[in-house]
């Protein structure tokens, strides 16, 4: 009984200070959060933080990018308070500022983290994760400690961490016991950790250069001295130098980490052996006071992490973001870094998260088959669709509605019926009972819906003439022309319009206006790579087809033979007939379609095309996108085409803020 009391007393002694501290932390937390919030002034961060007895797998603190909440480990804070000689307010403020800094300062955005992970991968001898973790911390901390008031708690936090290392108070009871079992001299091990500590190195920059406050770090005459001098040359505040700074810092961190790993290797081996031989001993019962029980391997892993750093193991990972954040991140990547880099980064994100982010198309290049039966030279590049689809999503487009003759639904009173309770009050014939509503006696109007033709402002259908001749960039290499066509197709489609495509080069492929957006995308990424001739007659026939719905059973044409087989030889009717003659149905067809031609302008039968455009301009809106506008832009501008908008596109940025069907300018 006496023994039992003694054990209980010991247990209480062990737990008591933590209970007291827990109350203190909780009491102080709202006050500190209020102060930090005032400092950051960021409305999206909730004014709360989660205090956990221990954070499994992290150990210290972290910022949850999904909920914008900060998680703090009480065990870690206690250690900083009692052994790191910091007052509890400083510990709390420093940690919260550091964590919120990851959201407000660096990496701040999911896309930055994706890019940095991608950039670092494979570059730092297997220490990539560590390099990125230190990089995130340095970028975050330097921006804060450069301001004396803002950064003072963060500086103190690092002083506390250094004190822990100097005192050798980095191991918990279980870890100490493991060292004993493995017969490892704790002081010898601590000397190695101290000698090759990247945390000391990084804190050295804070102390000497950015924070200008004594953190108790003196690297003179040590292995790290030279490394510190090299790091001091890097300007971490200049975001333009991020890549070079990351490489240079990463090389140093990797070199130091490699040395540390080498020195620690025999000790870790000893620990593993000791663990194996004493698996059945009472080692397991020495821990798990506050957290969940862990396997020995996990505990050893935590211990190794503690020895190798970083001291605050809170580096955000791609897995920490929600699907929506990842999608938005990829949207930013695609706009900033282009097709090749985007595809690489997307693959890495997919590997890291185990999720798929883009719908995949199949590669059908060279002599691919369309929906039709004949063999063609048209190369379908469906594997490029996801790239253009995502990139086009990040571009808006304003389409001016135009008056169109459309079928509208109209209601008219057909007769009357008895009004009953529950019928809509708007249908009551108030005159039937002299203004009084008497259910069963009062009459109500009976309505019927009917259709009629009316002119209303609507977004018309779209017909894209896409030049895919050899002089145009191949869709596989990131083509501005294809991107422009995707932006147009997507925005018209979102507005309920049908989209048709004429993909022309020496020959032409057609897709009649449709709501099948994937089919449209497939046609837009297809590539001929030949000469540039617009077969105007074929286009007329195509528009004729649109005007006769009964002929539209066959939708996709990629060869001349296929077209003639289905609809007869168009040349018989049109070859000598440049100007178009319009019957009423055809006129309506032209009227309800916006025609957009995307080309580099170098068209062989330019005269014929211009005549065609002029003759249709009276009834339809023509828009010409000139990609690579330097070569032929003057030819097109000088023509001064009526009712035709000419948009010059040189680079992707030129596609931002576009408007289709601009109202007439008052001043030329």
């Amino acid at each position, binding site marked *: 009984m006496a023994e039992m009391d003694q054990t209980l007393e010991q247990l209480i002694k062990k737990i008591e200070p933590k209970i007291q501290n827990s109350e203190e932390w909780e009491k102080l937390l709202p006050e500190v959060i209020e102060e930090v919030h005032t400092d950051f002034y960021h409305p999206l961060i909730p004014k709360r933080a989660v205090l956990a007895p221990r954070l499994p797998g992290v150990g210290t603190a972290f910022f949850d990018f999904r909920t914008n909440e900060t998680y703090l480990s009480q065990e870690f804070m206690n250690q900083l308070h009692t052994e790191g000689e910091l007052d509890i307010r400083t510990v709390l403020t420093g940690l919260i500022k550091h964590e919120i800094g990851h959201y407000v300062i660096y990496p701040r955005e999911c896309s930055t983290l994706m890019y940095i992970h991608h950039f670092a991968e494979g570059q730092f001898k297997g220490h990539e994760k560590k390099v990125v973790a230190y990089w995130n911390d340095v970028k975050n901390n330097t921006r804060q400690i450069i301001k004396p008031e803002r950064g003072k708690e963060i500086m103190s936090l690092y002083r506390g961490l250094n004190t822990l290392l100097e005192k050798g108070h980095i191991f918990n009871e279980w870890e100490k016991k493991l060292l004993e079992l493995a017969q490892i001299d704790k002081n010898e091990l601590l000397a190695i950790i101290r000698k090759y500590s990247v945390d000391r190195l990084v804190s050295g920059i804070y102390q000497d250069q950015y924070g200008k406050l004594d953190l108790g770090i003196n690297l003179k005459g040590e292995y790290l001295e030279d490394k510190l001098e090299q790091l001091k*040359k890097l300007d971490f505040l200049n975001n333009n*130098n991020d890549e070079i700074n990351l490489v240079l810092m990463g090389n140093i961190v990797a070199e130091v980490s490699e040395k540390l790993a080498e020195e620690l290797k025999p000790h870790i081996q000893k620990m593993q052996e000791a663990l194996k031989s004493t698996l059945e001993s009472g080692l397991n019962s020495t821990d798990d006071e506050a957290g969940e029980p862990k396997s020995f391997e996990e505990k050893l892993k935590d211990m190794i992490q503690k020895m190798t750093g970083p001291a605050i193991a809170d580096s955000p990972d791609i897995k920490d973001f929600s699907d929506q954040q990842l999608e938005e991140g990829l949207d930013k990547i695609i706009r900033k870094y282009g097709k090749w880099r985007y595809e690489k980064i997307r693959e890495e994100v997919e590997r890291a998260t185990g999720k798929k982010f883009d719908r995949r198309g199949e590669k059908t290049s060279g002599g691919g088959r369309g929906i039709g039966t004949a063999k063609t030279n048209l190369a379908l590049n469906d594997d490029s669709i996801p790239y253009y689809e995502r990139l086009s999503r990040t571009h808006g487009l304003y389409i001016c509605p135009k008056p169109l003759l459309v079928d509208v639904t109209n209601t008219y009173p057909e007769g009357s019926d008895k009004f009953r309770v529950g019928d809509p009050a708007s249908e009551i014939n108030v005159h039937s009972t002299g203004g009084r509503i008497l259910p069963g006696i009062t009459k109500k109007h009976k309505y019927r819906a009917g259709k009629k033709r009316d002119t209303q402002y609507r977004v018309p259908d779209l017909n894209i003439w896409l030049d895919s001749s050899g002089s145009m960039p191949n869709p596989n290499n990131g083509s501005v022309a294809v991107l422009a066509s995707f932006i147009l197709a997507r925005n018209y489609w979102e507005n309920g319009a049908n989209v048709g495509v004429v993909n022309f080069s020496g020959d032409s492929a057609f897709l009649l206006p449709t709501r099948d957006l994937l089919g449209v995308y497939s046609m837009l990424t297809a590539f001929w790579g030949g000469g540039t001739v617009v077969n105007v007659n074929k286009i007329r026939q195509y528009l004729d087809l649109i005007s006769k719905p009964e002929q539209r059973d066959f939708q996709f044409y990629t060869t001349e033979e296929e077209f003639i087989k289905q609809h007869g030889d168009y040349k018989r009717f049109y070859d000598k007939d440049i100007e178009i003659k319009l019957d009423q149905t055809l006129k309506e067809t032209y009227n309800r379609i916006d025609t957009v031609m995307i080309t580099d302008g170098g068209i062989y039968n330019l005269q014929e095309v211009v005549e065609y455009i002029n003759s249709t301009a009276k009834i339809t809106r023509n828009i010409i996108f000139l990609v690579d506008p330097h070569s032929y832009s003057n030819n097109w501008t000088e023509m001064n085409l009526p009712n035709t908008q000419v948009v010059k596109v040189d680079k992707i940025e030129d596609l931002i803020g576009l408007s289709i069907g601009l109202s007439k300018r008052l001043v030329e």
Partner: protein
Amino acid sequence: MKRTGFEGLLKEHEVGKVEVERKVDTGQSDYGELMRKYEEVLEAKDYSEIKTIDDILAPSDINAFLQVTIKYEQHQNYDWRTGKFISQLIQKSYDAGNNGFVLNTQKVKGVHNLGYKIQGTKERKIELKIEGDAGYNCGSNSKDSTITIEGNVGNDCGSYSNNSTITIAGNAGYDCGIYSKNSTITIGGNVGDYCGYYSNNSIITIEGNAGERCGGDSNNSTITIGGNVGDLCGSYAHDSTFKISNPELFYKLVPKILTNGNKVIYTHEQGIEKTYTKWRWLLWQKWTKH
């Protein structure tokens, strides 16, 4: 309720203190000036306009610099000029006593001209290893150099090389090793047309298939073909040796190229090597007729 005016509202409000940032002196960065020069190179109308680069970087720093260039990869001149710039850095570094250059191209998008015009000495060859793929002109016009490419290469790899050893683990494009002199070029995969064309005293080994005119117009060169070749292989070659092991190729090739002192060494399935000169071939034909 007592009403307060606008001034009253502001009375309680304290203007927050705007904190001044401390000044940080990082000194002159080694890379700042180099980056500026590189940007100049990208922007210049013509590469030759640019003054020579005097910066001397350690081999690992040159690789670090290559990685950093990816932020410029969307520039229209990136693909062609970056490699030339890197090659110049390699040359400067080599001249200052460094060697053993390693470039990691796994994260870099199609850089051409890597190892272009690099020159070592007979005693101390310039060593360049490319971890990943290389674009066009890799090791082109190189002299006294040893270039190893762990991936694939584009066209003109090792063209006009002199006394160089170029090893390609993957496939190579057109014109690989054309006009090479005293060089050893090994291709682990397939190669395009004109491989070893006009090569002089060179050893060219192709483990896979080769395109048209392989070893055409070569002089005193040894060309080994592991797979098949396109038309006109060895046309107009002089005193060159063609090593083959494909029986189909043997009958296709031998009657056409055994002129001008050329030889064919055919390795049978059993591993036995037989050398065929023009006269031996005629004799063998006569003997088989009987």
